[in-house]
């Protein structure tokens, strides 16, 4: 019986002209977005690798110079692009990809791609996930909005009941039909496109997780669609309710949440953050070059006292290097403190976004999709933290070398150029799914709850349908 209903439904949907046209348009859009997203991704990732290599090469090929000048010459690091980013570019356009490593300072990532073409950025980025998360639900609404209400409007519902179909079986059959269509549409396209663009390496657990996220999201909409179609007797009202929900969930809630977040937990300006750090360092840190500062004098005296000498020349090491590294060590704690505060603020903001997931499954699925594709906020923070760890090692290696060289007050000591190559390289790999377990537990739980709730709604609708007199 179940299968019979599903087959009848499938036949009807496949004969429905509007459906065929919509699927065609959706596929065309999906292929356009895949192709362009792929070429953009290739371009960016080669550019990033190339630029980082060039930067390192320039570092390696420096002439003889003082270690500290070399440290100031610095090095640029670039965020690698994940291979799944072609499905969901996430926040990558808004986060910046390059970071400059230099002493005394912790820099932020720069060159946000959105600044290169900001005119229509507000309208969204046309990646495959845009189609999966924004447009696919509309196709589902199109096939489900009148699934049950149509039977009532055409009077075939009484016929169905007279055949002895239970309302649960009826709804289950119709839901099954919608599921079959969505699975037939999504899975082959996802796998074929993925393998064509990403090779066999595409077939890993991350891709399947992404596919599962998309399927569950489609499922939520299928269940809601059938439910609304059952509870509302008029098709024209049910389509308005469904579209209203779609807009509310995918456009209104994320935006309003953003405004709420910005009101409760406003993010600081970069200049404001730098000012706070500057003041903190002025108060508690060591400024190497400001020799008249009280902290610098206190530190110098303590070192002299510790080694029981009266002049910096008599120290068993190069004091320039020693105080540079001491300043790094002290100030890094200050940087770490302020950045930890910033990340705590982000975490609070993200909690608020999560809470909005109670009314919007879209918020949840987008976070998960970005998370799987490694284009989310946490991956970005993971990268910036890794660059900062590297910065500490980079500067320490250079300062340690300076400590070993002879002391001159004016820092005129010149290091021969073979040293530059010995400074360790920046090795970084995108974190995979380990962040996923750390940050997305609640999101996953809420997402599964949404799915379960949508199934529950379906059950409720079948009860309701049963109790109604026809």
């Amino acid at each position, binding site marked *: 019986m179940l299968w019979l209903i599903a087959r009848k439904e499938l036949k009807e949907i496949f004969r429905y002209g509007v459906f065929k046209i919509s699927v065609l348009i959706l596929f065309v859009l999906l292929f356009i977005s895949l192709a362009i997203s792929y070429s953009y991704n290739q371009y960016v990732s080669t550019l990033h690798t190339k630029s980082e290599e060039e930067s390192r090469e*320039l570092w390696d090929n420096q002439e003889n110079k003082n270690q500290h000048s070399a440290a100031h010459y610095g090095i*640029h690091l670039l965020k690698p692009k994940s291979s799944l980013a072609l499905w969901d570019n996430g926040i990558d356009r808004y986060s910046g990809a390059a970071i400059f490593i230099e002493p005394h300072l912790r820099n*932020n990532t720069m060159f946000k791609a959105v600044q290169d*073409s900001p005119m*229509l950025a507000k*309208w969204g980025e046309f990646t495959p996930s845009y189609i999966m998360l924004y447009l696919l639900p509309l196709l589902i609404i199109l096939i489900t909005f009148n699934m049950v209400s149509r039977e009532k409007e055409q009077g075939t519902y009484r016929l169905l009941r007279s055949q002895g179909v239970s309302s649960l079986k009826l709804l289950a059959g119709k839901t099954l039909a919608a599921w079959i269509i969505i699975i037939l549409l999504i899975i082959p396209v996802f796998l074929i496109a993925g393998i064509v663009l990403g090779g066999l390496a595409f077939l890993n657990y991350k891709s399947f997780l992404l596919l599962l996220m998309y399927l569950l999201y489609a499922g939520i909409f299928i269940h809601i669609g059938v439910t609304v179609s059952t509870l509302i007797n008029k098709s024209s009202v049910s389509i308005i309710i469904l579209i209203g929900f779609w807009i509310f969930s995918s456009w209104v809630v994320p*935006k309003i949440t*953003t405004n709420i977040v910005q009101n409760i937990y406003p993010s*600081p300006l970069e200049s404001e953050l730098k000012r706070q750090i500057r003041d903190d360092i002025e108060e508690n840190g060591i400024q190497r070059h400001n020799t008249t500062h009280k902290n610098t004098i206190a530190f110098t005296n303590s070192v002299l006292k510790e080694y029981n000498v009266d002049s910096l020349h008599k120290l068993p090491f190069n004091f320039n290097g020693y105080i540079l590294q001491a300043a790094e060590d002290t100030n890094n704690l200050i940087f770490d403190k302020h950045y930890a505060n910033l990340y705590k603020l982000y975490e609070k903001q993200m909690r608020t976004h999560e809470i909005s997931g109670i009314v919007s499954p879209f918020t949840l699925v987008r976070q998960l999709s970005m998370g799987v594709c490694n284009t989310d906020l946490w991956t970005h923070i993971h990268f910036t933290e890794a660059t900062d760890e590297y910065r500490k090692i980079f500067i320490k290696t250079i300062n340690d070398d300076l400590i070993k060289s002879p002391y001159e007050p004016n820092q005129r000591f010149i290091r021969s150029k073979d040293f530059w190559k010995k400074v360790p390289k920046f090795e970084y790999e995108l974190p995979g799914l380990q962040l996923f377990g750390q940050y997305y537990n609640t999101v996953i739980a809420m997402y599964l709850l949404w799915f379960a709730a949508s199934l529950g709604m379906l059950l409720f609708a079948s009860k309701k349908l049963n109790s109604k007199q026809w």
Partner: protein
Amino acid sequence: MVRHIIYFEWKNIIRNKAIIWLVFTFLLILGLSIYNGTSNINYQLENIKKCKQDEQQRFENLLADIKKVESGELKVNAYTNPKTPYMVGGKSGGHEIIKMPHDLSFISMGLSDYYPYHYQISLRNQQLFSFLMGDDRMENPVNQLNSNFDLAFVLIWLLPLFIIAFSYNVLSSEKEQGTFKLLKAQPVSITRILIIKILLRFVIIIGIIAISICLFFSLFGVSIVDNITAIINLLSAISAYVLFWFMLSILVNLFNKNSSINAGILFTSWLLIILIIPTLLNLVANYKYPVSTRIEYISFVRDATCEIDNNPDKVLDKYFSEHPELGTRKSENMPFWVYTVALKNKIVEEVSDSLIMKYKSQLNNQIEFISYWKYFSPAIILQQALDKLSGNSTNDFLKFQAKADEYNYKWRRCFFQKILKDELLSKDDVLDLPRYSYEYEKENSIVTHSLFILACCVVVGGLIFLRKKFV
């Protein structure tokens, strides 16, 4: 007769509970969006105030420090001497130019989400050119991805949906209720009835928007009288946009389909005009005119400055021998790298022109591409109109950037010779320095935009005419 139709229609509308709910929801989100916009602007103003306070504090400290050094009260070294041109031009005398938001800036956040509204005029800028500078925000990128719930969003995205919900079944509902035949029996033609029905709804919607906007504006402290031209402009653009959607609704209703198909067709148009066309345009513009990412610039600059980075002494000596007016080279008052950086910046300025030109011309190509294709989506036209009205349009920010670059260039020129000549500045010198500021020219006229939207209306009107003629 016409009076009767209007009267009955009016009764119909106000007795429809769904419509009353719709209007109520619309007013709620309109108020919410204006509140969001004003609180965003207030945050901007707060930050601007902090910047100004910090700037003034630094300047006062500078003058005080110079006084102390001149009286011998304060001992300084090359790194801390407040009188060096590097300290004055960088840390302590550097100042901000600010693009102040105006009364109506909250209408559309526009590009203010991505571009900074203040630039530092200083020798200490890590980047020499504004196009390389960030947006001076530590904003959570997820927030930027979602962007704001501002008035522009409500008007462009949500208002058409309310219009659709308000008008998708003006004719089809008559048919479904069986009153269509009665209407046909009247001495007035169906088209005329349809137009009257739609016109009445148009007037109601515009009336609600006009009154509520004026009310909310004054509620959030925006003077109506002072901004009357801007508000009239705003309302005219909105009216044109609303008219467009109502005409589309007439056109769809004329096809005599049932209500749910009407709703489907109208929603699909919404989808096309608001979701698909703009995002596709964005995609194509990016693909066709890829703005060479600024990452390439890093290697470019490093290549150009390779010589001075590796042999600063040699290059500085060479520069002095080529420029005898600078005298003999001394470098005592400031740390050695200051001289190097000053010269290095000059070298970068000289070689960057071609790259900046390339970047800007690609950006301009994109802008032109979009302004050429925008006629396919009245939504883009309205967005641009609202951006312009609120002073957050692309053009406004590019102008501001150009000024920032000009001032920064002048500022660097002002200190370049002083640094190489190893001069120290006195208090009077510091007070004589230029201090730049930015005056934003307010533009209220968005008439052309409204006209463009009206042109879209005319196209739809033409289709209505054809439909009437041939069916």
